[in-house]
């Protein structure tokens, strides 16, 4: 079912510096053998003598004052090692720093609830015992007296500020700002029509990695250092949060992970629980281990951002040319901002979507509610905005009776315009969206759509066709944070790798990244092998992450679609340095210059005389153990090379909210066909195609795997996955029993194709691509609207449309749209 299409067309790319070799081929993954034999090491597999198990006592209320906490009965239980409460946390730590300006800046967020709980499942105390079962029993004995408060479960209610979650902030608003690019009023004046959409709503869900969060913490009293064997996916930022809160230095926090069972952004905001465990390890002078329960993960860890789009206005000409977009966005970040309000700017990486919109005004507000805090979630913040742009395109096309394919092609940024500067100064590096769409249409037989529609109708079904064209922007410029808060001292990006040649010729690579299934060991070894003239089998890439390796920097981690750029950029830089050092040593031995030396088959040899060769083992031995034979001028060689990759970013212009916010733009065009049973609202995806363009593919099979996975998550989010709350703030889908993720039987057949538009801005022509931009959600919503249009012109206004929602559309169509002519 897979087709690979490679465009030879107008690609703007400098010749890559690596020669053709292992990069670009699907070599066997280095990670596979241990994972297939049950020999991976996940955090919960790590044990320590005498360790205690942590269980959090959690709030049953969505909003309440904590009147009293009594842990005495828990402490009486034999085998209970100790407890921790919010009162202790407030004395022993400082609140985590907030990224926002006021009012969000004044929110106080601690490792445990202090004085008040703000969502169901919020940890109020912790118990440590000799077994996980006993810790759970003991937690039941902790008596907490609550005084319930009014509950806010929608962003619009929160905005009214009648009930305030964070009294220190004095408002439920975390951050508010208006972004205005181009001339929206001018666009309206030029337009033939203005399409007004009352409301669109992007629902709450999350990628729900199969491995829950957790950590084993050891405290070393002699050195004051904590070692955390956990699954935090962004230790660089985690340490920046944790160290000041714990009133210590970053040098006292060691993060270690080997294998991580998926993360998808949901393991970026683990600092509260990690800090609680650090305090317990120190207090009790024993290693403590916390493994999150699935129900706790769903209830109280990390949801994706929920966003309501209001008062949307789209000036458009008769032929479907989109002149502008105006929208009021209301983002619900749950009880605490944590990584927020970064989501209030991250969307701006893809401000016009795939389109040539020049006049855009976005009034963006983020509020707290009594729901689980959010964290980045695959497609973070861009996905919500791209869903908006795709919904707008289809709604406009339907309202003006235009063909959604033609409207897209008319408005897409064109391949010959690349690199393309968006109205807010982002630079789309390369891509050919129209070609991607053509390939996708061909894969589902779009030319026979009318026939398919009639055939479905003959079986009593409504057929719908939908497109999701989307972007996966990768490699953040953290300078975008200064557009939210000018005081923040973040900008650019970085990632680190070390590559060394050891005494017996071993090639050893360490990464700053924190892989969770993306195959970093494999792709790093491909890049190293090509540069050093060896095979990936000759290269050892240390599994996982350890801040003891000295191969991490402030932004180290695995997030935001960037390894192929930042991670492999660092690997390439370090390996280039090592290659030069090897050549210098060989040149010293042969009395030649480094330019006379080539690296082939694990040897450094004279280009002019292949017989004059030193195996890498010899080079490693000379430098590490026999260096008195070296000429003086090469004795600075260490064969242990570290490189920090820094993308070419500038600070954005704060006055104009203008600048390049991210380095690469992978693109995806997905199309799907759905069939709805009009009697029940039950529908099925009957055909699906995904065309992905992430520039040069280092490992095509890994790229395909990411496309499959992102598609499955998007289809889950489009059809079933939703974190729904009742009026009291109880989560109605707190585990996999109620929260239905796609199973093997739910997935439609997928047809895949690939374009390769190499990035002109990256070391290998590659782009990050792991997140996928939520194309499946956009495509399914579009297909449902197409199918429903003939049945009362209902507008698909939510991102998640389970069968009952579709039935609702059929029974009570809601237009929510008005078209005016200025």
């Amino acid at each position: 079912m897979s087709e690979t299409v490679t465009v030879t067309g107008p690609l703007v790319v400098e010749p890559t510096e690596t020669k053709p070799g292992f990069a670009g081929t699907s070599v066997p993954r280095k990670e596979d053998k241990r994972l297939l034999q049950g020999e991976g090491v996940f955090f919960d597999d790590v044990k320590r003598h005498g360790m205690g198990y942590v269980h959090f006592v959690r709030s049953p209320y969505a909003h309440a004052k904590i009147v009293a906490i009594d842990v005495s009965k828990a402490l009486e239980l034999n085998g209970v090692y100790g407890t921790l409460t919010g009162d202790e946390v407030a004395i022993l730590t400082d609140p985590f720093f907030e990224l926002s300006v006021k009012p969000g800046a004044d929110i106080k967020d601690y490792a445990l609830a202090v004085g008040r709980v703000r969502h169901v499942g919020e940890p109020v105390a912790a118990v440590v015992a000799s077994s996980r079962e006993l810790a759970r029993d003991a937690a039941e004995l902790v008596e907490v007296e609550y005084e319930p408060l009014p509950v806010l479960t929608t962003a619009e209610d929160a905005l009214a500020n009648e009930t305030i979650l964070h009294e220190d902030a004095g408002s439920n608003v975390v951050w508010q700002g208006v972004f205005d690019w181009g001339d929206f009023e001018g666009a309206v004046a030029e337009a033939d029509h203005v399409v007004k959409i009352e409301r669109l709503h992007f629902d709450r869900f999350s990628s729900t990695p199969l491995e829950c969060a957790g950590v084993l913490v050891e405290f070393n009293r002699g050195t004051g250092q904590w070692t955390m064997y956990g699954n935090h996916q962004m230790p660089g930022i985690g340490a920046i949060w944790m160290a000041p809160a714990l009133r210590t230095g970053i040098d006292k926090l060691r993060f270690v992970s080997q294998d991580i069972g998926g993360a998808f952004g949901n393991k970026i905001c683990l600092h509260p629980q990690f800090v609680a465990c650090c305090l317990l390890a120190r207090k009790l002078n024993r290693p403590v281990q916390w493994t999150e329960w699935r129900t706790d993960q769903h209830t109280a860890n990390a949801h994706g951002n929920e966003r309501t789009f209001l008062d949307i206005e789209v000036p458009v000409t008769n032929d479907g040319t989109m002149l502008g977009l105006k929208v009021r966005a209301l983002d619900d970040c749950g009880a605490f901002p944590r990584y927020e309000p970064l989501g209030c700017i991250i969307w701006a990486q893809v401000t016009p979507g795939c389109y040539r919109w020049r006049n855009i005004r976005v009034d963006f507000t983020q509020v707290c509610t009594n729901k689980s805090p959010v964290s980045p979630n695959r497609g973070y913040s861009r996905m919500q905005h791209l869903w908006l742009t795709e919904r707008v395109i289809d709604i406009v096309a339907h309202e003006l009776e235009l063909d959604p394919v033609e409207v897209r092609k008319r408005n897409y940024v064109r391949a010959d315009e690349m690199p393309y500067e968006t109205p807010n100064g982002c630079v789309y590096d390369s891509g050919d969206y129209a070609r991607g769409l053509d390939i996708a249409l061909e894969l589902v037989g779009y030319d026979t759509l009318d026939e398919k529609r009639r055939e479905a109708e003959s079986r009593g079904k409504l057929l719908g066709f939908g497109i999701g064209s989307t972007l996966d922007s990768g490699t953040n410029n953290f300078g975008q944070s200064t557009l939210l808060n000018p005081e923040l001292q973040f900008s650019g990006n970085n990632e680190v790798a070390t590559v060394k040649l050891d005494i017996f010729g071993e090639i050893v690579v360490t990464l700053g990244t924190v892989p969770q299934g993306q195959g970093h060991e494999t792709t790093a070894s491909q890049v190293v092998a090509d540069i050093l003239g060896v095979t990936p089998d000759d290269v050892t890439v240390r599994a996982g992450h350890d801040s003891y390796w000295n191969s991490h920097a402030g932004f180290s981690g695995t997030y935001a679609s960037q390894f192929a750029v930042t991670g492999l950029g660092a690997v390439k830089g370090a390996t280039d340095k090592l290659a030069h050092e090897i050549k210098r040593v060989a040149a010293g031995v042969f009395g030649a210059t480094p330019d006379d030396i080539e690296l082939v088959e694990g040897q450094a040899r004279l280009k002019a005389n292949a017989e004059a060769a030193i195996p890498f083992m010899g080079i490693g031995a000379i430098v590490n153990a026999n260096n008195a034979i070296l000429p003086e001028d090469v004795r600075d060689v260490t064969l242990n090379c570290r490189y920090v990759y820094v993308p070419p970013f500038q600070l954005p212009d704060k006055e104009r909210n203008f600048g390049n916010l991210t380095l690469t733009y992978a693109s995806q065009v997905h199309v799907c066909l759905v069939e709805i049973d009009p009697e029940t609202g039950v529908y099925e995806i009957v055909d699906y195609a995904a065309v992905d363009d992430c520039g040069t593919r280092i490992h095509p099979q890994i790229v395909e795997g990411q496309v499959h996975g992102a598609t499955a998550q998007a289809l889950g989010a489009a059809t079933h996955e939703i974190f729904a709350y009742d009026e009291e703030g109880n989560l109605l889908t707190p585990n996999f029993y109620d929260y239905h993720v796609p199973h093997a039987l739910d997935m439609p057949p997928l047809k895949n194709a690939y374009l390769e538009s190499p990035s002109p801005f990256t070391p290998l022509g590659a782009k990050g691509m792991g997140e996928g931009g939520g194309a499946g959600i956009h495509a399914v919503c579009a297909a449902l609207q197409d199918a429903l249009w003939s049945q009362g012109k209902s507008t698909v206004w939510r991102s998640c449309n389970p069968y009952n929602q579709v039935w609702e559309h059929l029974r009570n169509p809601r237009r929510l749209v008005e078209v005016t002519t200025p």
Partner: protein
Amino acid sequence: MEPTTSRRITVTVNGEAIEYDVDARRLLVHFLRDDLSLTGTHVGCDTGNCGACSVIYNGVLAKSCMLLAVQADGATVETVEGLSPDGQLTALQQAFSDHHALQCGYCTPGMLMSATALLRENASPNEEEIRKALQGNICRCTGYVNIVEAIKSASGGES
């Protein structure tokens, strides 16, 4: 009288007979992971939905988080560690690698046990039968596409 809180069980795990005093409330999955250090069997949920803890129990596929260790007295348990005791990947494991049927690897042991149980019952399942056999196993990384392909390939049913 104080109730009994532990009991000695005899259980055969991956061909090895083991006698062990287990807590009466100990789940089989925690007995395997924490007492026997067979950490290949994973825990992904607390409701029996995800299948990461799947083992073959007395010849039948079972979720080890849904059984107490004391229930396993006299039983035979096969875990992922028992699939390739000599260190060489089985045809099924090799097919998983060849087809990129795993990413993070967390669901993989459960997937392998479900597929192993399937292939013992039905040496050449069709795609529908494969997908049905996997419906108790959640994967959040792969969309199942390559897992299904790998099982087809290992069964000789590759298209």
